[in-house]
């Protein structure tokens, strides 16, 4: 044997997880939602998703190579693909392509790379891109085409949440409006108008369960978000059922599912410990409902997550994991 022995500190074996395997795991889990989007919105959905993914990867590669001057290979670790997919899932299927490309640039360039790349960003990149687009092109971003099967009243342009918000603003009651929006089952499978990927709670739930099984995410953040939204809306609904819709409606509409399962569980921008993630989730739930009830926008999940992203360092500081032998309870 002529080779020199390698000497390194322990441990000498390594688990199978890698950044790449985690990121591609998330990509796989997004496939059901993509399928539903294609089913309801046709090939437009596929086209937009592909464009967003390609744009995100290319922007990340370019920034790595020419601005950060680091190994551009990390553009292919899969995180840019997730950013692209989530970004596309948050837009209407008839959004002009150039807007989506600009959104991808903002998501990757501003949301992620300006902080130094994967792992250093404070805000969820896809949400940064989405909110940027929402503010820049409010009309295009909030005009949804009806899906292929939902033709009951022709071409409706609004999401269920938007219809309720507008209706209540015009003095109508919830029970009147409820007749116009699809049923809970429709919400669940995704038979309503809305952004590409956020319509089907079922598809997202399947993806979420897959990620839970692969231990990519934990239950803490999603469950605390759902719980908070449910409790908050149940209280408001009991106070005045004609002003505030039932909890199930709030749970299944808007981007709550995709937000809770994909954006709020983003490893980089969520707290590290389970305890912290619960606080984070409760915060998101409360802010979401505040915006939905009393804010200017019908939908508040994106803003809620971005706001809570900013609080993550503080949450981390005050939610240390349970130390071994700290609180001794020997019985």
């Amino acid at each position: 044997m002529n080779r020199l022995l390698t000497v390194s500190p322990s441990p000498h074996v390594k688990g199978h997880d890698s950044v790449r395997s985690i990121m591609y795991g998330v990509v796989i889990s997004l496939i059901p939602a993509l399928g539903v989007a294609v089913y309801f919105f046709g090939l437009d959905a596929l086209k937009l998703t592909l464009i967003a993914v390609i744009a995100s990867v290319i922007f990340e590669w370019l920034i790595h190579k020419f601005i950060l001057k680091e190994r551009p290979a990390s553009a292919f670790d899969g995180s840019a693909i997730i950013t692209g997919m989530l970004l596309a899932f948050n837009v209407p299927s008839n959004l002009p392509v150039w807007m989506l490309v600009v959104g991808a640039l903002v998501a990757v360039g501003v949301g992620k790379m300006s902080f130094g790349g994967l792992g250093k960003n404070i805000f969820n990149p896809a949400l940064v891109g989405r909110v940027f687009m929402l503010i820049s092109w409010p009309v295009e971003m909030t005009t949804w085409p009806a899906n292929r099967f939902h033709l009951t009243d022709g071409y409706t342009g609004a999401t269920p949440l938007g219809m309720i918000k507008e209706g209540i603003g015009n003095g109508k009651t919830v029970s009147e409006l409820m007749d116009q929006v699809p049923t809970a089952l429709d919400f669940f499978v995704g038979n309503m108008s809305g952004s590409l990927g956020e319509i089907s709670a079922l598809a997202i739930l399947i993806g979420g369960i897959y990620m839970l099984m692969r231990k990519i995410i934990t239950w803490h953040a999603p469950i605390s978000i759902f719980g908070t939204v449910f409790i908050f809306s149940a209280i408001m609904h009991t106070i005045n059922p004609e002003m505030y819709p039932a909890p199930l409606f709030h749970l299944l509409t808007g981007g709550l599912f995709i937000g809770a399962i994909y954006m709020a569980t983003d490893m980089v921008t969520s707290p590290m410990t389970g305890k912290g993630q619960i606080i984070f989730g409760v915060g998101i739930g409360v802010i979401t409902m505040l915006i939905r009830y009393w804010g200017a926008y019908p939908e508040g999940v994106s803003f809620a997550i971005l706001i809570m992203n900013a609080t993550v360092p503080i949450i981390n500081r005050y939610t240390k994991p349970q130390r071994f032998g700290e609180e001794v309870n020997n019985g």
Partner: protein
Amino acid sequence: MSEIIIYTVITLSALGAVAAVVLFFIAKKFKVYEDPRIDQVEELLPAANCGGCGFPGCRAFAEAMVKADDISEFNCPVGGNDTMAAIATALGKELQEKEPQIAVIRCNGTPEHRKRTTKYEGASSCSVAHNLYTGETNCAYGCLSEGDCVVVCDFDAIYMDEATGLPVVKDNCVACGACITACPRNIIELRNRGKKERRIFISCINKDKGAPAKKACSVACIGCGKCVKECPFDAITLENNLAYIDYEKCKLCRKCVPVCPTNAIHELNFPPRKAKPAAPKAEKETTAPKADAADNKPKQDNNSTN
């Protein structure tokens, strides 16, 4: 339209004015008295905030000096004697001039001299490697080549030579001492820069007995003591199988260099010797232009009167 603009301008100006008045009184009321000399001294300091003086930043150093009665113990290695003299004058205190210093690397374990026996593969940090084992060679004292000293240098005065695997100190070293603290093996030492940047030192800190030291590295100090006997000024001491040249006593006569059987004694920035075997080592430790062969003084050995 114009009305809006006028109202805006008026409101904002009024707000600004009120805030200014409030701030003015608050600033007055909560003003903390500070010795104005601190600012003066800070002004004179190089603002490198390197910590070479032993204080966290130039401001802290200035405060300490203003408070102290005797500033002879203080030294700003970056500013050097000029800065310290200016501060002494400003504070009206006594100060002795200090020899300017520079960091030297006391290891010459290049791959030719020191056989690699293992391959290190951990976090690329000397401290981590030092914590783990002797390093890639059999020398438990020598340079680990992971570059902790380079990382901590604020002045870009040290770099890692890829070919030799050893750090190289550049002439712009300010002797702040950051690399000395960073080196887990204490290879780096501050020494007087010496006349015309000429320095002689033992480029090894191996305290093993002769045989294992020599086995680990062909240019190790084996503690034979020949240089100690040779030195006319008693500047060299031998302790734990390792010779050390006291830079205060050394007169740079170079007599010790040729007697060393392992070429462990390093001479820097000297003109080449005449009619003697060539200087044992390449002068690799500086980027300063070498003294020209033209003003080559043949009697280097006796320039001991300075």
